[in-house]
């Protein structure tokens, strides 16, 4: 059964979600992942939006975290301040899985979604943090979604919008951040992880038919490729859920 790399990315993220997780969803592919997880293997996972919709029963794919579709049969509504409070609170925050994207990532999983070049005279401008920095500060299991491209995987960020493992080792803890750095980076070619000690990016999984060298070619800094292993391709059941149930209009998986 053929599939697109976008479908593979969505399913790779979906598979990380366990039945008792609270999933912080951003716009786009992370919503597809969370919806897929609930339909496939984690029916009790709680979908949680920074806009304040808690435990939404998504019937139609939202096109933004403020889309009225996120309000569908939620267990409750809260304010922006309250929803981030659930993340900063250690009792609830430790059970939250964050899924975020960015324009750039560095070897320690720090993210830039603000600008490139001089902050006061940038050559490129992105939307800014939104809730991404907040979730990256607070939660214990943050998953990053990025397409592998040399201009996205860079040794140094112009602007560090969201904290990853900062400068590696225990620098994140020393900075006083309550949650953990990113657990993985899900790309369109494989899944990157972080060394347990140095916290530097490394290659963990390769999608079907992708080589480790092909991954390294799309990253502007050297990563450890030695522990790469194959990642299970999508099952027909998984693909069917994505295509028939979650995004039949191909709004995201286009």
């Amino acid at each position, binding site marked *: 059964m053929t599939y697109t790399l976008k479908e593979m990315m969505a399913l790779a993220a979906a598979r990380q979600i366990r039945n008792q997780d609270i999933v912080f969803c951003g*716009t*786009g592919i992370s919503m597809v992942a969370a919806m897929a997880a609930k339909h496939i293997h984690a029916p009790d996972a709680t979908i949680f939006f*920074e*806009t*304040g*919709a808690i435990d939404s029963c998504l*019937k*139609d794919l*939202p*096109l*933004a*975290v*403020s*889309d*009225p*579709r*996120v*309000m*569908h049969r939620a267990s409750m*509504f809260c*304010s*922006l*301040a309250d929803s*981030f409070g659930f*993340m*900063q609170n250690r009792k609830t925050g430790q059970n939250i899985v964050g899924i975020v994207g960015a324009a750039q990532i560095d070897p320690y999983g*720090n993210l830039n979604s603000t*600008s490139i070049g001089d*902050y*006061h*005279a*940038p*050559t*490129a*401008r*992105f*939307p*800014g*943090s*939104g*809730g*991404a*920095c*907040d979730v990256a*500060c*607070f939660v214990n299991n943050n998953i990053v979604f990025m397409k592998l491209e040399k201009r996205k995987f860079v040794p140094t960020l112009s*602007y*560090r*919008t969201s*904290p990853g493992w*900062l400068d590696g080792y225990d*620098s*994140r803890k020393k*900075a*006083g*951040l*309550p949650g953990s750095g990113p657990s993985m980076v899900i790309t369109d070619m494989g899944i990157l992880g972080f060394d347990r000690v140095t916290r530097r990016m490394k290659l963990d999984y390769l999608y079907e038919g992708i080589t480790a060298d092909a991954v390294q070619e799309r990253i502007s800094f050297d990563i450890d490729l030695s522990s790469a292993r194959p990642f299970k391709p999508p099952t027909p059941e998984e693909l069917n859920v994505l295509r028939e149930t979650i995004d039949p*209009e191909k*709004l*995201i998986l286009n």
Partner: protein
Amino acid sequence: MHHASNHKITSIEQAVSKYVSNGAHLSIGGFTINRNPMAAVHEIIRQGIRNLHVYAHSNGQGLDQLIGAGCVSRLEIAYSGNGRFAPTCLCFKRAVLERTIQVEDYTNFQMALRFLAGAMGVPFLPTYSSLGTDIVEKWGFPDQIRLDEPKLASKKLVVMDNPFSRDHETEKLVLVPAIHPDVTIIHAQKADATGCTRIEGLSFADIDQAKAARHVIVTCDHLVSENELRKDSGANHLPAFCVDAVVHIPHGAYPTACFNEYDYDAVFLEQYQQAAGNDDTLDPFFQTYIHSPADHAEFVAMAAQNRLESIRANPVTGYADRMKRGA
């Protein structure tokens, strides 16, 4: 029950002209493509208000139009995307790259806390968010602006040691300063003549934005009786004494969504994206849709064309669950 308070009902022309002056510090309610006070945004553009200082979390469509129309000179913001319609809002991006606006970046939680601090009447609130990032390190406004403008916080933020820490290793916190907009404008499903306001669905940061402000304008889809709102006190969000002006504008959030009333108009939002990329296309777009129509109702009729029925909310789901959104 109030007896003599119906004077808060006014027109959008009068409300904007009274409370939104050149150089005003403004915040608007809603979030990206939902419940932006679009009728008020269009009126601000029509009246040619300039040099606004805007406080935004992820205000989306309304904010980008204010920037595109040249109304904004300074912006404190967390996010300027607009969901699937704009990974980065186009007018915002152009204004930053062309340096026609000055920007200071925060996170969504920080902006929510800053409005909450304003609402609570304290100068700051603490958070762990943004430690170790350039949100802390890189400040957008030159010091001179802070000195010249007493309404601004004297610092972007302050990092402090936790005074309740028991450890030698101090925990650090980021203190973010309160916001007190001159005026906050929100759009609600329902309000009464005294200003008591009910939002259905998510309220985002609207309530704190309103409480933090010196003046509050509420536009509403339905102007209802005091009696109706008091039948379910727990469903209301702002008391009369927080609100200065009430404007009854059906479809006042269009083309953004309003839960239980209407969905976003994906087609018109896409048309805006097509126009927003440069002034040659945006100016005529604003001319057609903002300056020419006699009022908001005429704008809605012109913009939505034959789609008004298709974006009408299904009363069960609160949105138009049969609306076609794909290509």
